[in-house]
């Protein structure tokens, strides 16, 4: 093997992708997340501000997860159908990331652009108690950021928000263009 010369400066792309079965302690992760919330809170003036920041950090994570999981779990094949993409998030992504699937996926009755992904106990909320005066804050907006990035970067632009409803509900609002395109796919 005469790889030694090129090895001297190997980049991450030269290394094989790990299987991704590694695990670390939940306590450690929970404390890190709590520090992230505090860090973001110290730099925001309102709850909206804070939610925006947490979502932004989540989006950073989601952007990087997208390729990783499609390469590893789906043989590099991306989804092109809206429903399949949502199911990928609810099942595959959530399962690998949090160890369990999200509980439910629902379609809003009154708005075809809106879907709900419902999760009873979001992992990141496990050790968080929200003070009374910040009742609307749901730190799972971080997860919503992950969903938003995964959807948007795979060609389904959407806005995702987190709400306290049946545990945590992620409200996914797609761009009109996504719905229109999905319909033409149906017709074919």
């Amino acid at each position: 093997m005469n790889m030694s010369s090129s090895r001297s400066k190997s980049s991450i792309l030269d290394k094989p992708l790990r299987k991704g079965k590694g695990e670390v302690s939940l306590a450690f992760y929970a404390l890190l997340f709590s520090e992230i919330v505090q860090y973001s809170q110290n730099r925001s003036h309102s709850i909206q501000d804070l939610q925006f920041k947490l979502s932004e950090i989540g989006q950073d994570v989601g952007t990087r997860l997208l390729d990783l999981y499609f390469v590893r779990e789906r043989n590099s094949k991306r989804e092109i159908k809206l429903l399949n993409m949502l199911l990928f998030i609810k099942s595959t992504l959530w399962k690998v990331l949090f160890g369990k699937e999200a509980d439910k996926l629902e379609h809003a009755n009154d708005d075809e652009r809106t879907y709900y992904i419902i999760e009873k106990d979001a992992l990141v909320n496990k050790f968080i108690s929200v003070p009374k005066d910040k009742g609307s804050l749901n730190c799972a907006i971080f997860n919503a950021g992950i969903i938003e990035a995964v959807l948007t970067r795979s060609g389904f632009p959407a806005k995702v928000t987190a709400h306290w409803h049946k545990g945590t509900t992620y409200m996914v609002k797609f761009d009109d263009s996504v719905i229109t395109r999905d319909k033409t796919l149906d017709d074919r």
Partner: protein
Amino acid sequence: MSRQTSRLDAKKVNSELLTLTYGALVSQMLKETENTEDVNKHLERIGYNMGVRLIEDFLARTTSTRCLEMRETADKIQQAFKLYLSMQPTVTSWSSAGDEFSLVWDHCPLSEWVEMPSNNGLKYCALIPGAIRGALQMVQLDVQCWFVQDQLKGDPVTELRVKYLKRLEDAVPAGED
């Protein structure tokens, strides 16, 4: 109901979630703060805050007793790495006085997939020395930690030096002993 298995069961999360979350935090900090030195300080502080609380979890899980010398402490730190980050640094390079040692590792879930531009003062893993300092402070040990080598900066391994400074006598809460 046995406490050991049910309540203190070491729950786990996917290590990639940690890797990416930490990475997102660091890059967010770099975006908001111009000065990398400030980011280093802030990461250390975050580690410190975590360490202060992790030590309790550690004591509850491992039923450790007070360490009588630094070698024991080093063993415990090594154990904590295994418990919390599923990684196993080696303890080496003891000073002759036995008050200073190195933790060496070549793989860490925090710094996986990370590439750094050269000539960057960022101490990407500054959270770890912070956590060690915080945790040991809660058991009345004042230590200093610093990086001697860093894989992200081209060194073959990452080496963290830990030095014992003094025992904190005053930190014993009232009512103890």
